[in-house]
């Protein structure tokens, strides 16, 4: 609560915060907000320009673009959230054990992240989602894997510094077990940087999902996923400008909102960037 109050105090993040609330609202209640079915095709209504019947026009199968964008919020943003949280969760645990235990385990894990980092993000995501088969869940998994080394490294660095604190040193003198130290001391204390990183990554994940969708590897049609919608829609830019424009704007707004919020949270929680 206090954090939110601080977020809204900053003019830079205030607007973004309210937009985020709108996005969350739209995402949660999307089935109630769509004037048309986002998936039912109606060939006779194809490619209608925006008007009072269809605010954002219709697509090549006569579906209402407004409804598809609304319904797509849940898909695109939800999956991005899922992918990043999954990655953060797994990465935090691997990284904190790696950092705390050290020795050869740390070496193996760190070299593995080296290897993963040597792949370009998008290419790895592309190959992974191609290997797993095209589906939105697999795309999320691919993104989670791609982001994993970042969280592992972040968690490890933090775990290393936390494991040198006096309270961990103290815990060692009590004869408590390593899992206890990791679970009770290290993980809770590295949450802050992880949360900061998470909030910065969500925007990126939305874009990645959209990019995979754009390359035909994300959601399966007729799922209204923004990237896939742009992928089809951008061929219509010259004659049916509304199709890619509104979809692109939706992605842009969602991503920039998450990025600004991420920046804001980072300012709040990261003493270096803040006061």
């Amino acid at each position, binding site marked *: 609560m206090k954090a939110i109050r601080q977020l809204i105090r900053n003019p830079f993040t205030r607007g973004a915060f309210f937009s985020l609330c709108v996005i969350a609202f739209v995402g949660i209640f999307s089935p109630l907000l769509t004037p048309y079915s986002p998936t039912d095709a109606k060939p006779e209504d194809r490619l209608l320009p925006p008007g009072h019947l269809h605010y954002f026009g219709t697509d090549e199968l006569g579906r209402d673009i407004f409804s598809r964008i609304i319904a797509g919020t849940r898909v695109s943003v939800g999956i991005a959230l899922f992918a990043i949280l999954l990655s953060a969760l797994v990465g935090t645990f691997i990284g904190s054990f790696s950092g705390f235990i050290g020795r050869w385990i740390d070496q193996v894990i760190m070299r593995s992240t080296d290897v993963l980092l040597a792949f370009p993000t998008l290419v790895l995501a592309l190959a992974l989602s191609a290997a797993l088969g095209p589906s939105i869940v697999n795309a999320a998994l691919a993104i989670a894997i791609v982001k994993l080394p970042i969280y592992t490294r972040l968690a490890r660095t933090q775990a290393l510094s936390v494991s040198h604190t006096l309270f961990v040193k103290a815990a060692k003198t009590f004869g408590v077990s390593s899992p206890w130290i990791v679970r009770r001391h290290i993980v809770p204390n590295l949450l802050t940087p992880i949360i900061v990183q998470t909030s910065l990554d969500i925007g990126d994940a939305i874009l990645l999902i959209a990019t995979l969708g754009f390359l035909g590897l994300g959601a399966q049609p007729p799922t209204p996923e923004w990237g896939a919608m742009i992928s089809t829609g951008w061929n219509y830019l*010259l004659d049916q400008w509304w199709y890619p424009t509104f979809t692109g704007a939706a992605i842009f707004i969602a991503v920039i909102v998450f990025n600004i919020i991420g920046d804001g949270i980072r300012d709040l929680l990261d003493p270096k960037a803040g006061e």
Partner: protein
Amino acid sequence: MTQRLRARFSAVSVFAVVGALALGMIASGPANAAISKTTLVVGMSADLDYLDPAATMDNAQWKITYPCYQRLVEYNGASTDVVPGLASAWRISRDHLTYTFTIKSGQKFSDGTAVTAKAVQYTFERLLKVAKGPADNFTAIASVRANGLKTVVFVLNQVSPQFLYTLAGNYGGIVNPATASKAVNGDSGQAYLADHTAGSGAYVLTEWKKGQYLKLEQNKFYGGKKPVLETVLFKIVGDASSQRLQLGKGEIDIAEGITSDQYAAVAKEDGNTVINKPSLTVDIMYINSGKGNAALKNTLVRQAISYALDYQGIMAATQAGNATQMNGPIPDGMWGQDPKGFQYTTNVTKAKALLAQAGVTNLSLDLLYSARKSWWASEAQLIQDNLAKAGITVNLKLTEYATARKMIDAGTFDLCLGTWSPDYADPSMFMNFWFDSGNFGLAGNRSFYSNPAVDKLIRSAASITDQKKRTALYIQAQKIVVEEAAYGYLYQMNYRLALRTDVKGFVYNPMIEQIYNLETMYKA
């Protein structure tokens, strides 16, 4: 000291501004130079793979090789008949097993050496040795022998009514035997011919900037009439909108990548025109009655599916109406077609009734398709929508082309979208490939359809040469496969191509779609 530092600091920050200004100044000049009248620029959507006529089976690559090689026989303009090409004449033995060709004189390869019978023998022996896709078309060849410089004799191991037509295909292009010296690791020169041409056609591939363009220039030793176009550039412009913009600016003369819905708008723009002709390419849905969902073995279910489809809606949404609904497997324009063949109409009530009759409820099918054709996504979603109205659930399986092909071969799908175009003007291209139970999988029968009666009819039709008798047999077979709804017979497409109005002389031949008759094209 500090002043120097300050200077350095501001230098850093000013760098960007100055750089941007400089770029802006560069940018303000005209963006593109006009293309000369003897140069043709074709915008294509993707780079090509490899060009060896003994290996490639893709019309996209053929548009490069076709004008660079000559064949023994050639298609005659827009017609599906063949006329003498490199061969000035040929003789067919009475038993239809021996073909003797006489080579035209004065024809030379791009290195200046003469085209001889030996070259023909080399070409076909090599093709069979390489044993890639093209070899499948020449399984009938038992031997090929050069008889002196001018005569070459093909001996077949079975009667093959389409043999002459296959020689007019891209794989019939005669290769310079000098390329034998380019072989590495026993690849018969495949690596060399992958990005070089070595034929006697009017053009030679002179440059291939991977990912950017391919450049054809005239073959100095070409034996035919000297073409008008000096240079032909095939430029890669991946995005459809970019192609359209570049066409509008005259930066490209032909835009291959225009999407279905854009043609109408393109045609209206100044300086552009659109060719729109019926083609022999059909768009169909494989209904896997062999290895797919068990319900698909039931003819009633397949019929129900065929009645549930909204053919007009599909054609409108995917081809902007530039298509004709099929009435059987053989398209209009190909002999052997049954003009009175039965045509399914959209009738959801009937579809439901048929399903009820079959006792099938809660049917759920996977529809496989790839992004290979831009309209398949729309088509798949419409089919999903159509079948849903009849009570059939369809799960869309968008799969990459390479994977989809593998799945088609293995039969691991229920429904699948596909297109088919004939390699030669013979109805066997449709009937024997699609319905012979010996051709399961990629080879042609992708519905895994099996009916001994049909097998018998089409096999006997393929073993004789009398066109009338063959037509009768094929019509008989067509009635069965339409009745049994072995495939979803969707539509026969129109061939559409967007080009500048000053591009003249282009002749569309449905047998060699996507290929340009560069020898006779010119710019006015």
